[in-house]
């Protein structure tokens, strides 16, 4: 029983981290229908810039703010120069965002050097609570809380403002939204910036979790995030959360009980979802 609780909590934390990673993607992919392969690039830039500030200032809070700032800025730049010319064209999106991904990834090495960087959790979040045989890693609890916070904040915003509707409408028919008196360009830009900021945030949060950051992790994690978005049903925030948690938990339990298949966990999960519930596991409207 203790073991199960331990596994569950850790799985949940992994899931939350994946959710944070996927959240930016869901927002951009789900609302704006943009397949943003540069997402991983935003993620690593968030991680590296945050860690740089963290090491310079010794303050994790500053680091988080810095990476959000980086995300917003990069988001602005990316939307204006990279994404704007290719709205509504999936194929061009793939090419241009992959190209930009390469540039972002390689630029990391120019700016921060080619080596991986070790990152420790801030002192307050280091170590774990031990209750009986249950080990609760502090940093993971922190991530779980933060993930839930992001989830509820965004669910609230999307539900209670017109923004979500406008963006979705804009994707279906840009012209019509403009003809209704809405400056869709600005709306898209803001949404993209926010998506980029969450990606960057998940980057800095990921750093102490895995203890190390490196330029190539961007694409790796972006693919994972993409899988989660699909399993959750495209564009559904709740779906992404549940799918991410499902992936986290499955990984944790498979690694313990069926280690032989743990390599294939994500893929098997995806195959199962596609075959048995192709609309996505948790398609919820909105």
């Amino acid at each position: 029983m203790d073991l199960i609780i331990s596994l569950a909590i850790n799985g949940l934390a992994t899931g939350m981290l994946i959710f944070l990673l996927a959240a930016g993607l869901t927002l951009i992919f789900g609302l704006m229908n943009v397949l943003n392969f540069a997402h991983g690039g935003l993620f690593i830039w968030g991680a590296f810039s945050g860690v740089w500030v963290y090491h310079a200032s010794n303050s994790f809070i500053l680091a988080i703010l810095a990476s959000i700032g980086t995300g917003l800025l990069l988001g602005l730049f990316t939307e204006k120069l990279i994404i704007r010319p290719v709205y509504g064209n999936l194929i061009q999106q793939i090419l241009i965002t992959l190209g930009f991904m390469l540039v972002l990834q390689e630029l990391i090495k120019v700016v921060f050097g080619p080596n991986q960087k070790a990152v420790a959790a801030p002192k307050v979040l280091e170590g774990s609570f031990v209750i009986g045989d249950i080990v609760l890693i502090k940093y993971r609890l922190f991530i779980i809380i933060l993930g839930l916070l992001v989830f509820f904040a965004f669910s609230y915003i999307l539900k209670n403002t017109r923004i979500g509707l406008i963006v979705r409408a804009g994707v279906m028919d840009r012209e019509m939204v403009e003809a209704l008196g809405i400056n869709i360009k600005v709306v898209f830009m803001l949404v993209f910036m926010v998506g980029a900021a969450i990606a960057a945030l998940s980057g800095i949060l990921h750093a102490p979790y895995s203890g190390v950051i490196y330029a190539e992790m961007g694409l790796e994690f972006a693919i994972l995030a993409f899988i989660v978005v699909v399993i959750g049903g495209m564009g559904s925030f709740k779906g992404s959360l549940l799918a991410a948690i499902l992936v986290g938990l499955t990984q944790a339990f498979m690694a313990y009980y069926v280690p032989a298949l743990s390599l294939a966990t994500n893929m098997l999960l995806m195959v199962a979802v596609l075959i048995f519930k192709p609309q996505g596991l948790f398609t919820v409207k909105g």
Partner: protein
Amino acid sequence: MNSLLKLENVESFIQQYHILHDITFDVPKGEVTVLLGRNGAGKTTTLRTIMGLNPLSKGSIKFNHEEVGNLRPYVIANKGIGYVPEDQGIFGDLTVGENMRVAIKKEDEETQKRLNWILDLFPDLKKFWNKLGGTLSGGQKQMLAIARAYVNENELLLIDEPSKGLAPIIVEKVMESIQQMKETTTIVLVEQNFLMASGIGDHFYIIDDGRTIHHGDMEELKSDKALMQKYLGIA
């Protein structure tokens, strides 16, 4: 005569195609101006050019004596112009209610009053308030498109073939609604249903091959069979 919208020698290209050659017309405030013409004459393109959805290559478009040619569509819309597009422009993955919410500019009492009036006009919309726009019937979509334009207070409405796909009884309601709105709102109407066009139109312009080739009072046209035969092909 107090003119609200004035087009002078408007020309427009879509990609390399020269679609509008010379459109000139004048929309007096508080009246219904009808654009007539055969398929492909350029009526829709004219409305789209006014809305800023097509580039204006030459000529001028003045709204309230202010040049609006080639402004961004949302700027034009916010000057008080509403638009019902020919293809309805319904957001298929949004519900009827959400479609309306996207359109509503400010949520005040006035708007609520208008909304109630619209829902009385088209009870179907009320009934299917939570239904996805994409699953509506053709006529219901048309109603929704009209409703979206009605819900904000606009000085000018551009309406492209509203009667298309509507049951006769609804066409009648739409005509009535336009009559009611004339007090506050000026209307440019593209309409093929001559019964409707002649029923509510005050003036008409005939467009052919991207040019305005004739205009006059609707009453005149209704009584002048030769004119109708010449320009509209109806006896």
